[in-house]
């Protein structure tokens, strides 16, 4: 390969590699993100235990204002601004689906269909085939909840940091 062709190839490679391999940069281009967790707190400052101003739900669409140090500054559809952690958001719109039954025709490459694939119905089938599997205990495990204010008090009393 001649030097000219090699330089051209490196230029082309660089253009594509730098054109947006990171989710964060992709999200910044679209300026719209969705909550991908069952719920997430909209925080008043970019810290894990900062006071929350609202609870966001799976599929909620948000306007991305800024990304910094793993935190997204966002605005909700009702106009409230705050912070969510980057691991709570997707750069694709999330379409909620109550059931996996039937074809809705919403399976675009550009959206994520919540409830698709490994879901409640697949779990139910797995449970039927594995009667010893103890989903009742898993439900009890998930039901153990700690209030955030109690957790912050616990951290302070133990001399732990509170700025996660």
């Amino acid at each position, binding site marked *: 390969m001649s030097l000219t062709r090699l330089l051209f190839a490196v230029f082309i490679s660089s253009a594509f590699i730098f054109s947006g391999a990171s989710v964060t940069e992709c999200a910044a281009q679209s300026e719209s993100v969705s909550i991908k967790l069952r719920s997430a707190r909209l925080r008043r400052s970019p810290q894990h235990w900062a006071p929350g101003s609202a609870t966001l739900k799976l599929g909620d669409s948000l306007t991305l204002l800024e990304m910094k140090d793993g935190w997204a500054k966002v605005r909700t559809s009702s106009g409230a601004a705050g912070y969510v952690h980057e691991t709570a958001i997707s750069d694709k719109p999330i379409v909620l689906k109550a059931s996996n039954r039937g*074809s809705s025709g919403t399976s675009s490459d550009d959206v994520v269909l919540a409830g698709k*694939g490994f879901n409640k119905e697949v779990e139910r089938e797995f*449970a039927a085939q594995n009667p010893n599997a103890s989903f009742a205990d898993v439900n009890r495990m998930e039901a153990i909840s700690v209030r955030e204010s109690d957790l912050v008090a*616990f*951290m302070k009393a133990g*001399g732990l940091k509170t700025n996660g």
Partner: protein
Amino acid sequence: MDKTFRLVLIIAALFSGACSQLDPKFRSIGSSVLGATGYVTDSQANSFFTAGEKLGKAAEGLTDEQEYYLGRSVSAVILAQYRPLRNNAAQLYVNKVGKVLAGFSDKPETFSGYHFLILDTDEVNALSAPGGFIFISKGFLRLLPSEDALAAVLAHEVAHVVQGHGVKAIRSSNLTGALLLIGKEVAASQVDPSFQELTSLFGDSVNDITETLITKGYSRGQEYDSDEYAAQLLVRAGYNPAALGTVLRVLEQHDGGDAGGWASTHPDPDDRLDEVEDLIASNPEAARMESARTQRFQRSLPGLTAG
């Protein structure tokens, strides 16, 4: 076209697929440049982009929600083998310590949050399932002298979740098969062969993970990575990282590397100590409040600890 040049173009096209929302403008420019140069045809250029997009989608893997359902079933299988300890106060305390550590991790949020459970068994063991389901045995608690030592064990398990080791334990044939089916619209029906296949792949994936957790163990590299991450988590949260050394020395004394549970699925504690030695020097600031934490550890887990 010589082979090296062709390879560079293919790599460029594959990288372009890493971002699913690649600006169409870039796609258009890339396609026309590749095509117009005469080095590749337009259709060849487009096929490179298609390959890149597919690679990008495969790399996306399971969603947080799908990991959560896998984690629930793995946990249900674990809880068929071990019963939860019936002590609400103790369970709440362990959840507080665990949730603090998870909050300082690089994955502080999972689909349904992190959950911790003490298992009512004398076996010395700790396990974590995808989605943030984490278990520690009563037998392990009995060896621990302090909250910081408990935090070290839980931090190691949180590290497995953050680093995605559970999902990586799924055989690639099962994961690829599942991802291909998930890409389709599958009707939840016992008469739909695709749904039956998806359920079967789900069961196989659950088996792959539980077999790794309970019998085979993760790779030595994954265990060392989790120890290293645990040491960092302890520092971030304000716990004394020296507690990880305490745990490994306690394990060494207890089993000498041959007593089932953690001993059979983890590298020798002595080797693990060597790997993290530089990361677990005692932190004077964290050590200052350690005795207060140890007191509440003893109060919260009466009769359950070595403290």
